[in-house]
């Protein structure tokens, strides 16, 4: 269980996170959704203990995050935390030496799925390939909680769709995914739960099965939470061209 309780984070006087609380159980696939600047990345970095200071409490199976339980967390972002001079297979050797539950079979399968070269240094990869390598490593580490922050910039849509399919087939019930993305339409059937952030606050938290029972589409639900009003937008446009509009 990953417990996030009343998380607060300030950057100077700006409040990046404002009282965010939720609990992730094993087996969940949680979408962390919200506009740019909503606090998604900050939240993930707080969980990973990457931030120098924040308030609140984060517990991983009942314990604070530290060297003792770091191995339970994995992180894939587009910030490239791998070693540029090492090849994919050298990364495998390195990961295997520090993570006892490293899943080599999954690593090789994902490497082939993305068609990543095994013996070329990572720094020679394209941007998309670098993001893919990062994703492969995070998923193979053997972690219980896998955090992915917009991991697919640089991949095409078919690659992403197939990747979600593959992941649905690979994931075990004792693994959880927390995925931040703005490509909601693509992940709406993949997720089991959606947590919606807005300006550092938690706007909503919903089980997708509940939305499905109510016959509500995730994207429509988000618009509703945001108070989005398409008629209002159209009206604004008309007002802006007032006088210039011919009926």
């Amino acid at each position, binding site marked *: 269980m990953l417990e996030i309780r009343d998380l607060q984070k300030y950057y100077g006087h700006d409040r990046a996170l404002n009282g965010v609380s939720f609990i992730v159980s094993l087996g969940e696939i949680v979408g962390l959704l919200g506009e740019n600047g909503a606090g998604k990345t900050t939240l993930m970095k707080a969980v990973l203990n990457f931030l120098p200071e924040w308030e609140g409490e984060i517990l991983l199976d009942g314990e604070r995050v530290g060297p003792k339980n770091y191995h339970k967390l994995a992180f894939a972002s587009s910030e490239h935390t791998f070693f540029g001079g090492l090849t994919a297979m050298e990364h495998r050797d390195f990961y295997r030496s520090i993570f006892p539950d490293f899943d080599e079979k999954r690593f090789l399968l994902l490497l082939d799925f993305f068609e990543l070269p095994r013996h070329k240094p990572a720094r020679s990869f394209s941007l998309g390939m670098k993001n893919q390598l990062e994703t492969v490593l995070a998923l193979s580490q053997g972690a219980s909680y896998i955090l992915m922050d917009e991991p697919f910039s640089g991949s095409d849509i078919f690659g992403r769709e197939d990747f*979600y399919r593959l992941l649905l087939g690979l994931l075990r019930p004792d693994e959880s995914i927390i995925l931040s993305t703005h490509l909601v339409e693509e992940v709406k059937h993949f997720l089991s739960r959606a947590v919606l952030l807005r300006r550092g606050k938690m706007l909503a938290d919903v089980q997708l099965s509940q939305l499905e029972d109510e016959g509500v589409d995730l994207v429509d639900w988000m618009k509703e939470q945001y108070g989005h009003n398409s008629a209002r937008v159209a009206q604004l446009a008309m007002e802006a061209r007032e006088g210039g509009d011919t009926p």
Partner: protein
Amino acid sequence: MLDFTALKLDDQTPIYQQVVRYVKLAIISGTASSGEELPSRRFLSALLGVNPNTIQKACRLMEEEGFLQSAAGSGSSLSFTPEMAAEMKRALLREETLRYLDSVKKMGLGRQAVLALVEDLWAEETGGEER
């Protein structure tokens, strides 16, 4: 093993209902027979690209309706009598027809107009044959 590759999901109805409907259509049309196995839930989840909870829900619904049997450890298989398949067909046809009636009513068509339209289109489609 029932083949799900022809199932194309849409955004109009909940996914689990689309899965159940797909299986029912296979039963009604005779492409699925009693005793036939379903692929594993994990496989269906990956094939359709939907969360395992959704597949689980579809299976539970089919179990409750009595035409899917799941044994712990092994997979799930279809189990139905010809009477059940006939009843399924009646229910599905009724559902489809009600949906149709609902939409033509919204367009303001009355009973006579609808019946006449069905007659006309039927004749057009079948070249006048009674089938």
